[in-house]
């Protein structure tokens, strides 16, 4: 379970997140939506400490990851992340992208890491691409590999930072289908997305951020049909 308490993040004078508190239960799928600049990505990146919070606490399964005593690397091994721009390692083959961290960080043998990687590539439908370099893949394929790479560390939590925003329209579905498939496996997921239909279908809960505040926190059917705040109503009018 992820517990976020009074999270504040500033970049210099700019306060991007203002006192955010929420919980994400184990196995829950949370969609984080809101206008650009609202702090969605920053909030997500605080959960694996790619951004260090200015104030407040984040606890994962009761362990305070914002404490200076916490081993950040250990936390990150357990929290997978998928980026908008994939960030595959271009000098490694697809298979090596998947096996690198499990071998070097988790200490798995080449055979074990390879077996996990092959299984995952099959799950995302890219078995035949194992020996290719990322530059030979389409955007949608790259993102599916990136998801598999994060999963290869066998994390309990997956963070998705606008996973389909950099994709051509016809590739969005193949990536969303993979994420949907994951939602049913019981892994905890936080997804920053602009795909409202997807959020509605997949998420157990929707967090709506605006101007650094957590404005709404509701199940998708309630959020999308009867949003409480004016700001959410305006936002939905524009995007739906």
């Amino acid at each position, binding site marked *: 379970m992820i517990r976020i308490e009074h999270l504040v993040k500033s970049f210099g004078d700019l306060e991007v997140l203002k006192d955010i508190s929420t919980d994400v239960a184990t196995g829950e799928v949370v969609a984080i939506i809101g206008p650009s600049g609202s702090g969605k990505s920053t909030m997500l990146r605080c959960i694996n400490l790619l951004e260090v919070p200015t104030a407040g606490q984040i606890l994962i399964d009761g362990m305070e990851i914002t404490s200076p005593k916490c081993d950040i690397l250990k936390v990150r*091994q357990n929290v997978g992340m998928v980026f908008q721009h994939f960030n*595959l390692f*271009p000098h490694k083959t697809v298979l090596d992208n998947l096996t690198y961290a499990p071998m*070097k*960080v988790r200490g798995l043998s080449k055979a074990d890491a390879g077996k996990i990687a092959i299984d995952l590539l099959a799950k995302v439908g890219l078995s035949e691409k194992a020996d290719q370099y990322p*530059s030979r893949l389409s955007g949608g394929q790259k993102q599916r590999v990136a998801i598999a790479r994060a999963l290869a560390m066998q994390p309990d939590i997956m963070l998705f930072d606008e996973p389909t925003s950099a994709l051509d329209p016809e590739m969005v579905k193949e990536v969303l289908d993979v994420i949907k498939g994951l939602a049913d496996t019981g892994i905890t997921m936080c997804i920053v997305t602009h795909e409202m239909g997807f959020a509605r279908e997949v998420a157990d809960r929707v967090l709506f951020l605006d101007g650094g505040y957590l404005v709404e926190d509701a199940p998708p059917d309630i959020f999308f049909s009867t949003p409480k705040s004016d700001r959410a109503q305006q936002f939905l009018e524009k995007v739906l």
Partner: protein
Amino acid sequence: MNLDFSQIAPSLPFILKGIIVTLQFTLLSAVFGFTLGTLLSLLKISDIKPLRWFAEFYTSIFRGTPLILQLALVYFATPQVIGYRISPIEAGVITFALNSAAYSSETIRAGIMAVDKGQREAAMSLGVPYKLMMLDIILPQAFKNILPALVNESIALLKDSALVSTIGVLDLMRRAQVVAGQTFLYFEPLIVVGVIYYVMVMGLTQAAQVLERRMRRSD
């Protein structure tokens, strides 16, 4: 103008032995220089200010003074200061490595900065520690980008290595001078080593192109 290469023909084996000396010297200087340059470049991008200051100060010293002065200092001053009789080869390799490190550290720093920020974030998000991230993810991509610049640096090293002739290393240049002294012919031996330097630089350029092609495999 009457050139007479036949008179220096007997000295040719003597001159050719200088190729080994020059190549050995360049290789050692490049290996130590680029290794040290990589470490310096990591200091330059460090969050710890004193480390950055040190690396920048170091670079300014080696860029701000003539190479031949540095060479003379290391060779002639070392015995005086620390009492160790340094050999010309040692003095040469040390000076050239230290000097090359100063220059290449700037190049390598730029190469590291040019690697997409997302690569670092991806490695971090997988729990990869800093050292492994640098060695396995960032530096291989950085070196690929700056390979042409490093080849230039190596070529400069190869040619500048002729400076060690001034402290008595029997490299190509020195051997040409020795032959000139024995035969009283200057033009011929100098032309011969000039051609040898040129061929070596061309060879290095070719080798670099092959290496670059291999590294572009993943593109």
